[in-house]
């Protein structure tokens, strides 16, 4: 898809989890702006996380992880990490997860109706007037972002506030974030800034710090929503090496074609030897 002269700069999120204080303002702002239905799922006991995961009715999800890990940097340092630390031995990680708006988007590739499309901002959005609820995108997404809304049968996910972008406004979550953990901007600028931040944190002794989905060479071609994490991705419920499985579509069709030919030969072979 090419927008030609109508193309806009590639926009995205850089979520710097080292700045997250777990206030969930992003979750609330998203719900309010996008009129996302309530998603009460009870008390989980998963630290402060009762949102559980991303889904049809949860487009931002703040993960909370309590770890018994020694502090890597001094509280009085200027790494901006002090907010994470409570006491001597508790490392409390918080991270606001969101749709990654993949460059190679599995959901978009498999959508049979064209309901999922790439916008002029290079983000990935579901057109609700076209989605027929076939559900193919749900298990296709390597991050488990999309889900079907039971009430109306359609699939819903983060739009990166497509409506606000069209009005030159930043997405609701980024605007509401009080610590600037969620940063919105042009992708190139965000990537540059993220690399600088990683250097800064690593220099301050935070050697577990890593950029996630920052690189265009990964299995989804880089994300429009990428992250700075303070531990391995799976600790946050994120896959360490996600891929858009459609990259294998050639071999998948080859297998299906070969199987179809074999079936044809099998049927023909059944007639060798006549009718006895």
């Amino acid at each position: 898809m090419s927008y030609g002269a109508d193309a806009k700069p590639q926009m995205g999120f850089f979520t710097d989890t080292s700045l997250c204080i777990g206030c969930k303002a992003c979750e609330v702002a998203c719900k309010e702006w996008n009129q996302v239905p309530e998603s009460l799922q009870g008390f989980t006991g998963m630290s402060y996380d009762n949102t559980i995961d991303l889904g049809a009715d949860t487009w931002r999800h703040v993960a909370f992880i309590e770890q018994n890990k020694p502090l890597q940097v001094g509280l009085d340092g200027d790494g901006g990490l002090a907010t994470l630390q409570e006491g001597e031995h508790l490392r409390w990680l918080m991270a606001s997860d969101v749709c990654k708006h993949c460059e190679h988007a599995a959901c978009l590739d498999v959508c049979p109706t064209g309901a999922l499309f790439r916008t002029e901002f290079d983000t990935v959005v579901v057109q609700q007037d076209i989605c027929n609820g076939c559900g193919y995108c749900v298990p296709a997404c390597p991050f488990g972002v999309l889900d079907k809304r039971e009430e109306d049968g359609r699939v819903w996910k983060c739009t990166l506030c497509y409506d606000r972008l069209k009005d030159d406004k930043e997405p609701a979550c980024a605007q509401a974030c009080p610590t600037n953990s969620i940063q919105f901007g042009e992708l190139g600028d965000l990537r540059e800034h993220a690399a600088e931040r990683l250097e800064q944190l690593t220099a301050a002794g935070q050697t577990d710090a890593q950029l996630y989905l920052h690189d265009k060479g990964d299995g989804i071609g880089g994300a429009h929503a990428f992250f700075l994490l303070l531990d391995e991705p799976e600790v946050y419920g994120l896959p360490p090496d996600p891929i858009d499985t459609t990259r294998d579509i050639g071999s998948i069709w080859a297998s299906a074609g070969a199987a179809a030919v074999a079936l044809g030969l099998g049927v023909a072979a059944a007639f060798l030897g006549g009718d006895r």
Partner: protein
Amino acid sequence: MSDYYGRPIIKEPVWTPEIPIYFFTGGLAGASAGLAFMAERTGNEVLARRAWIAALGGVAVSPALLISDLGVPTRFLNMLRMFKVTSPMSVGSWILSVSGVSTGLAAVNSLTGLFPVLGKASKPVAALFGLPLSTYTGALIANTSVPIWHNGRRTLPALFAAGAAASAGAAATVMTPVRHAAPARRLAIIGAASELVATNVMEEHLGGVAQPYHEGSSGTLTRVAKVLTAVGGMTIGAWGHRRRSAAVIGGGALLAGALTERFAVFRAGFESAKDPKFTVGPQRERIEAGRGRGASQRAAA
């Protein structure tokens, strides 16, 4: 290996049991059309008519099953808004459309003599499109992030093709008088043997990811499918050419086996999606073996 409170990383499919039933009916219809076409070409009208009936039954219920699974069933025609090779569901919708119409015309012509020109022209089309109709469903589930499906992408279409052959052979064996049913019996036995081989090759190839095929409810379904398929195939092979009762029992077992196998594959996908270890494990192995670069970068030392 760490995870986030044991929560799944990918979503379980939202598909209902209509889908594995469709995998079965689509395969039954597809291979039955081929069987009917060949029977007609070799002058076996008795077998041809019955195989066309099976094909017609399959393509008649298939769209109904698929539409009823949709979240917004009234929008089923949106499936034909575009043709996308990256989406096996899109390609499959077109295959099923062509297959459905051609099989319908062919079957009606075979049974009633109506549509002499169109019906005759539809028969090779139905036979031909029946082949991908039987296998694209394997491609469909293979192109997802569900580890047990995606890692089985080389064998799933073959497994479904074998199940289709077994189903079509079995249905015709059940419906056709013994002396006209020899090709159907051979197709049933070829299909049953191939199905058992394909299942084992797939499990072998999947390694640790195959666990849901061995344990829990999907493991039970897999074992039941294997027993039904083996018993059905052997019954038809040993006694199917002599006794109609054996043909009916053996054919029934094979049909049940093919249906159960589709449910086994379907349910295994849910189990595979549910446990984060199946998602993270192979990805970590990929990174460690240098076959995947991973999505994280630390700062250069």
